[in-house]
């Protein structure tokens, strides 16, 4: 290499050095700016940590009640389909399993569907989770931090109890808080605990509505466990005329009466044949049973094949659905006590509905009439599904018949009386494995 070449090489090397320094400085500067400009707005959501504060207690309780009410609407439709109150009338095969009573744990519609699309396990679990969560937070906060804290505790506990109760009634097994599989009886027991908490808090705070709700809930949970005497004791404490409902409003799909939306608006379910044209025997002949108001819409349902029968118990998307009532409490007493005490209760309820009285001295006939009274008085209130299971009532249509009774859709009617715990729980919950 001659001198000129060396000089040239040196110059190039110097330039390369300068460039390297510039490169390094540039890179460092850029690195220092790396974290800038990453702020991204999210106007449709709020972080959980910033929400769970005492000043938001009422908001969170509202959320828990809203979650339950939406889940409950879905529950009433699902329970109706599975227990034979309603019949599926869509061309969407993924919806048919409720009606056919052959749900597989891998199906997503019942396990992961939302309350607006008649999902069940997830909406009930969310409702349970939000109620339990705010109950836990309220119990950790003070009265100074949260006005009406005890009343809010009563509300949260009562709705947490109902979520657990319905999980137990609908599912053969279910899990809570990513825990182990719980049987229905275990779920009823846990619901009873929540209702007890609610009763204590409602008494302290003077919240009569929640107190009555918790009495009915605990009576139902105890009846479901076979604790009949305790159930009657609670039911007897319910004030006459009491009713608490899942409220509904127009405008938001989430808040609408799900039965009315599915049957009267969407026409995707129809009232099942055993509930059409029901009558009560009277001295002058059969009298239309006003407790099961159903009309023939004289048209086809959504599938263009099934005849559409509309319920008119709920007459708008804003109609409320009873969650707990004095009527239910009375029927619990009637079922447990039987005999003429049951007849009295049946007739009181019939009289209120403007129906002829029932009379019998045959214990079996009376017991059957109580069951029938429950079927009719509590029509489309989410009660009949567990009655079918609890009382081992016949499945209608009968298992093994081709699905469906109107036209062939494939498969046969199944034997399920409760829903299996879904795969989404057992596969993702390490404590509830298959």
């Amino acid at each position, binding site marked *: 290499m001659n001198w000129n070449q060396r000089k040239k090489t040196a110059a190039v090397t110097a330039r390369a050095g300068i460039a390297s320094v510039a490169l390094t400085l*540039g890179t460092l500067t850029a690195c220092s700016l790396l974290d800038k400009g990453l702020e991204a707005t999210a106007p449709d959501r709020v972080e959980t940590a910033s929400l769970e504060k005492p000043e938001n207690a009422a908001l969170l309780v509202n959320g828990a009640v809203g979650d339950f009410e939406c889940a409950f609407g879905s529950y009433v439709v699902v329970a109706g389909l599975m227990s034979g109150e309603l019949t599926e009338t869509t061309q969407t095969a993924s919806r048919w399993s409720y009606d056919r009573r052959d749900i597989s744990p891998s199906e997503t519609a019942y396990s992961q569907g939302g309350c607006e699309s008649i999902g069940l396990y997830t909406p009930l679990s969310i409702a349970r989770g939000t109620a339990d969560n705010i109950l836990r937070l309220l119990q950790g906060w003070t009265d100074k931090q949260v006005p009406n804290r005890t009343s809010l505790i009563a509300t949260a506990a009562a709705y947490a109890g109902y979520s657990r109760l319905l999980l137990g009634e609908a599912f053969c097994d*279910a899990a809570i808080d990513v825990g182990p599989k719980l049987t229905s009886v275990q779920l009823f027991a846990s619901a009873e605990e929540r209702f007890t908490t609610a009763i204590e808090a409602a008494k302290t705070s003077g919240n009569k509505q929640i107190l009555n709700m918790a009495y009915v809930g605990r009576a139902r949970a105890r009846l479901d466990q076979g604790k009949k005497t305790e159930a009657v004791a609670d039911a007897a404490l319910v004030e006459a005329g009491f009713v608490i409902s899942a409220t509904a409003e127009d405008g938001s*799909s989430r808040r609408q009466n799900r039965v009315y939306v599915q049957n009267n608006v969407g026409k995707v379910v129809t009232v099942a044949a055993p509930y059409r044209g029901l009558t009560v025997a009277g001295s002058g002949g059969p009298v239309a049973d006003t407790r099961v108001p159903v009309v023939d819409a004289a048209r086809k349902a959504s599938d263009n094949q099934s005849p559409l029968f509309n319920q008119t118990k709920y007459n708008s998307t804003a109609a409320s659905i009873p969650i707990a009532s004095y009527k239910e409490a009375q029927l619990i007493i009637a079922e447990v006590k039987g005999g003429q005490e049951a007849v009295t209760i049946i007739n009181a309820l019939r009289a209120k509905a403007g129906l002829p009285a029932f009379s019998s001295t045959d214990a079996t006939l009376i017991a059957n009439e109580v069951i029938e009274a429950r079927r009719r008085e509590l029509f489309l209130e989410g009660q009949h599904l567990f009655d079918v299971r609890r009382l081992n009532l016949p499945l209608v249509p009968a298992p093994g018949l081709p699905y469906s009774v109107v036209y062939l859709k494939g498969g046969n009617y199944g034997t399920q009386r409760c829903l299996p715990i879904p795969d989404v729980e057992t596969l993702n919950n390490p404590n*509830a494995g298959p």
Partner: protein
Amino acid sequence: MAEFSQSHTIAATVRGAALRRRMVAAFIALVVSAVCGTTAAAQSDVIAGVVTQQGGAPIPNVQVTIKGTRLGAITDASGRFRITGVTGPTATVEARRIGYRLTTVRATSGDQSVRVTLPIATVSLDAVVVTGQPGFTDKRTLGVDVAQIDATSAVQRGPVRDVQQLLNGRAAGVTILQNSGVVGSGATVRIRGVSSFSLSNQPLIYVDGVRVDNAQGTGPTNQGFGASTTSRWNDFSPDDIETIEIVRGPAASTLYGTEAANGVIQIITKKGSQGKPTWEFSTRQGVNQFANPEGRLFTNYSRDAAGAIQSLDIVDRESTNGTPIFRKGRMQSYDLGVGGGSPLFRYRISGNFQRDEGAEATNQLKNTGTRANLSVFPSDRVSVVASLNFVQARTDLPFEAGGGGLTWGTYFSSPSFLDYREGWRTAPPSMYHKEYQSYQDVGRFTGSVELNHHPSHWFSQRAVIGTDRGNEYSEELASVHPDLINFFGDDAGLGYKAVDTRDNSLSTVNYSATVIGSLGRHLSSSSSFGADFYRRHTRFVSAYGEVFPAPGLTAISSTTANRTGSENQVQNNTVGVFGQQQFGWNDRLFLTAGLRVDNNSSFGANFSRVYYPKFSGAWVVSEEPFFHLGGINTLKLRAAYGQTGQAPTPYSAVPTFTAVPGPGGSAAVTPLSRGNPNLGPERGYETELGLDAGFLGDRAGIEFTYFTGGTKDAILAREVPPSSGYPGSQLINAGRLSKRGMEFVLRGTPLQTSRAGLDMSFTAATNKSTVENLGGADFIVPSRYIQHRVGFPVGAWFEKKVVDATLDANGKVLAVMCDGGPGANNAPVPCGSAPNVFLGRTTPNFEGAFSSNLRVFSNLSFYALVDFKRGYSKLDGNRRVRCHIFIQCRENYYPLEFSPAIVGAVSSSNYISDLIQDASFTKLREVSVSYNLPGAWVSRLGSSGGSISLAGRNLHTWTKYKGLEPEASFQGGSRGFGQWEQNVTPQLRSFVTSLRLTF
């Protein structure tokens, strides 16, 4: 742009004042050019001529430059070019185009009849690549393979109407999974198979250096189940595209950083060239049709009231009655462009109009686009290139698949509906068309400004700033038609309307700089660094209302029930810096190392920035003195390793609640997402090995690439156990998948004479994606019947497999037996206790294409493209609906004609094993004949050149798939991961004539 890749030797220093003076001069020149339409066309220092193939056929769009300067031009449709401003008595003319060998000739200044003959290149190391590197780079320096598609040729040869058709079969490893034959719909595009379990598998798209919206399924959910079919890829006119470059995997896309794990597609649009204005006009006229519906659609069965079996072939009936169900949709497009310029300013401005009608009466795409590419050269060291594109389009969509519509009514017609419905399911087509409308309007602007600055021969820098803004308006309307209540229920009597807008904005800011140097006689160095910022912001507004009080009212404000509305925004930002060092040895051995550092707004609070390294080497071994292998005249070996990533879904790291209406109108909140503060990006990694070789004087060439890698920290959408109180899924970095495969390209020119030429190309690619780890789980379920299961292909079909059934004498099913799975040595077990077993892959693992172009004399060409996809299965949802759900197949009524396993399978809608079928196919995709019009003919039109062509598309399919069409399925939604066909419009056959003229 490419001029600057040739101008690294310019050594003069620029001073600010001189730069400003030149910019003023450039602006004046711009105005003069625009007004006068020509600049300096009469100069004597001109070199002009024609570029042809060896047989004399002109080659358009060749980049012709005067070597050592930035002077240049692009040939017109007649192959002609004209360069002014040449200094010196002679000059070296370089001609360069994808697919041809770089050719140089000496020319005398003033010579206007220069003739450059370009041999077809079967392997080219001199092509310039703009993708994946800080600046423009010769392919010889790359340790990876970057595929290039000559869009101009593809558009001229075949009936290509959108970018996806342009990609199909023209680049190894790029999979185009067509979803619907509906005009305006889009395909699913994947590069090297599946890279992610839970995030998008779509490649990024850049247009002239700016990241753009790559949505493949937007607009009305006309397929139902959340599946929309409109593709934003349709917004770019193939007529405006010069080349498409494809960076396939992490080894090549490292510098693109987070979000580039699925590869990158770079669209480079046509630019103006120096010279007088050249006008180009083209038009296409043709038809789209549903090929052979009479032979393809179904005969459906039912029983009448007396129990007798009856059948209906509604397509046959309608054809016999002279009322065919599907129409021949007209295709038409017009494209007009003008380009030209001076040494200071160049332009290309174009406008196009496209109107394509589908096979269904309500299906139509209308697209009007304008593009302006403006280049200003204020000095030898500075260039500013602005690319501006605006498109306005309307897509009228028919409902199909889960959305119902004509295909629903037709495919699932039944003799049990021979009442007022005349056999159609739900309603006759005319009733559907009367009752429902669905369309999308879009206005989209894509613009970029690119500044190149070369202050010295050893330093260059480039900045790109750009935006892509699209405003979509999607509408679904059911008008008030009380007379249709019998068909559609109260929808028809009361009506409803849903409107969704999606305003999408992507911003790109990119800076890169390169320092080159010579470290001695043999060693060169190239150091690059840069930074970029990407921002994606999408605003959604929706409104809905039901019940119009009277016919004619169609505004949501006129509805009287269930009126709802919503608004939301989603934002994601990425900031990254990168550096790269390359050393070259004697211009034939190149070693490169690079690093990119990224942060992204979707990363969790506990996750800091991410680092992506890359290393590569390229060795042009055939240029080594010792290389003497008979028959091989070009050989380049390459190897690379790189990483890149993909950011999580926005906001998925944070546990959140969302607002909902509460009881009695109160405010309330409900859980939305469980979040994961440790969430980070997926990390794609890949090693790529390959070679490029030319044989027999480069008359044959191959490109071979082997890749192996995968994705670690793969994000899994682990379903949240509902008992936690949260809905949906939680993203976690817990998965790992592996990928490997090969890509092979063979090009040959077996015949090259003055009378005829034949060039052929064969591409083939394999890919194998395997689930390696799922964070401890055996499998996860991304969508119905699909599992990601350890040890199996990513996203595979899994369900019970019916293997036998017991039938009584009448064919009634008494018991159904299924595959007992590996645990039972696959012995039959009652289906009730059978496990789900592997039923097939969902994406092809072997695909390719064969194309050939035969030139006869200098003006007649015959072209054909055949492509194939193999090794995957799809779900025949038509059969599912017909046989399993609506019970209207022959199997349901004549069971004794079929095997017990088939009868058992159709006995329940819970069995699908008979629906999962091998969907491998080979398709005669394109055939065309082109004729270059004689000069005497075109001159009568005042034209300087032109061509006509006749082409056909989707002409024949060879397949064992028993469903309607291997290339028809849901586009995403809840049916999305696997190909699932259900009353989807098949790919349409089209015939097109085209005319191109240059003035």
